[in-house]
């Protein structure tokens, strides 16, 4: 019961804020809604027991990436009046068609899952540690060690790339 309430409230918030992100006229407002959206997603992760991912969601997404967005929005603050959202905007037809297709797919899935319920959960993995962070860490630092190091390489490359891009060519 409580789980359902939490889910529906959070889902409503997530979708509502997402719509506001996409429709807000002022980019700064979009960023604000994006933060709130991400915080709701983090709360959803908590209800799913993924504490560590939730913490990262807040720390990296809400506290880091969106700050970057906000700075960039303020850096390129266009002096022209903010772009109005028009229904007849670019690729509106294509966008709506695609969105419609996805919705049809979603409906299909919903119907399908009614017809054949998901398979019962498989047994939990046995890890030598308890606690969400510890378990995630254990997977990250044993089975997924190579992707982990590759991810750090990716971050390095991203940093170098961003610095090169930010430099003024003279």
């Amino acid at each position, binding site marked *: 019961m409580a789980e359902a309430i939490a889910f529906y409230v959070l889902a409503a918030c997530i979708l509502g804020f997402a719509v506001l992100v996409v429709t807000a006229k002022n980019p700064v407002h979009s960023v604000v809604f994006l933060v709130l959206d991400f915080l709701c997603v983090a709360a959803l992760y908590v209800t799913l027991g993924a504490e560590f991912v939730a913490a990262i969601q807040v720390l990296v997404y809400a506290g880091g990436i969106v700050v970057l967005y906000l700075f960039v929005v303020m*850096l390129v603050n266009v002096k022209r009046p903010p772009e109005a959202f028009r229904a007849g905007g670019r690729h509106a037809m294509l966008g709506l068609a695609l969105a419609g297709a996805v919705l049809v797919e979603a409906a299909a899935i919903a119907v399908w899952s009614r017809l054949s319920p998901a398979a019962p959960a498989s047994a939990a993995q046995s890890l030598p540690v308890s606690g969400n962070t510890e378990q995630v860490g254990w997977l990250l630092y044993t089975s997924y060690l190579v992707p982990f190091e590759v991810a750090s390489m990716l971050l390095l490359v991203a940093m170098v790339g961003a610095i090169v891009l*930010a*430099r003024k060519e003279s």
Partner: protein
Amino acid sequence: MSSPTPQYGPMFDTDELVINMGPQHPSTHGVLRVVLRLDGEKVVDADVVIGYLHRGVEKLSESRSWAQIVLLTDRLDYVSAATSNVGYCETVEKLMAIEVPRRAKYLRVILSELQRIASHLLWLGTHAMDTGAMTVFLYAFRERELILDLFEEYCGARLTYNSMRIGGLPQDLPPSWDRKVLEFCRIMEGKLEEYETLLTGNRIWLERTKGVGVIDGAEALALGLSGPPLRGSGVRRDVRKDEPYAAYDEMEFDVPLGVAGDTFDRYVVRMQEFRQSIRIIRQAMQGIPEGPILGKVPRLIKPPAGEVYHAIESPKGELGFFIVSDGKSMSPYRFRVRPPSFCNLQALPRLVKGHLIADVVALIGSLDVVLGEVDR
């Protein structure tokens, strides 16, 4: 004029931002307005806008009697009224060839030096406050209060003293005033150590002042700097030594000089001047002769026709008065003040170029301008 501006790392430049600093800004020492063109926080260019406190003292003096103008000079550099009084009175005395008694000359030296300490204390406090050291501000004001008490006892006023008369001084020293002055000198010497503990040895203070607003001696001279900012650049120029007035020719004192010409050197110069002032006060108190305090002055002050320029060393720099008398009317025909703050402030755009906003504040502080004198 193309002395090197500080060089900072590789460029990540973007567009410039124009921002107003002042006239209502907590650290432009009154109503100074600086229009800054910024790149990020770096100052690309600065335009100094003044005149917000322009009261027309020069024009006003042309319709005031010679004696009344002493009052107006109080309002020039209102934190250092006594030195302005001395400067004006000496100029008129020079014009009228009035001989001032030696005792009055000594008293002028004592009052000028006390005033210099008071003015420098105000500078120290506000300069430290500008860089965020608020305790020094209150300490400096605590000691300044002692000087104001001394002045109050001498002439009844605490800020605009009207403490000089053409030909001498209005009254002799109150009883036991000399003892209090010497006592103050003793206290002040101890307090100087305290300030230096808080600032001179402080890493943050050094980082904030060393290498900021560097100007070499030749350029400082060319830009018309005078007083401590000029001496901070290593130029040995002090009106008290070069063109002695009052009883300064009988005093023994050193002219402290800076080396690098940065904010820190200007700070050091003024800190040394505190000590020199105390030294002068002690000498003057010791050698003060007995005698009258007012020379032979006609009842009606009406100088002969002619022009005169006379300068003194105010705490801010060379304070000059250029006075024209037509020999007929009861007021000066032309009254002109050469304000040291005005001329020092002129160097601000050159000093701040390439520095950060925080340095602008520190540099205004290190020039020690008083807007009452800049705008007159």
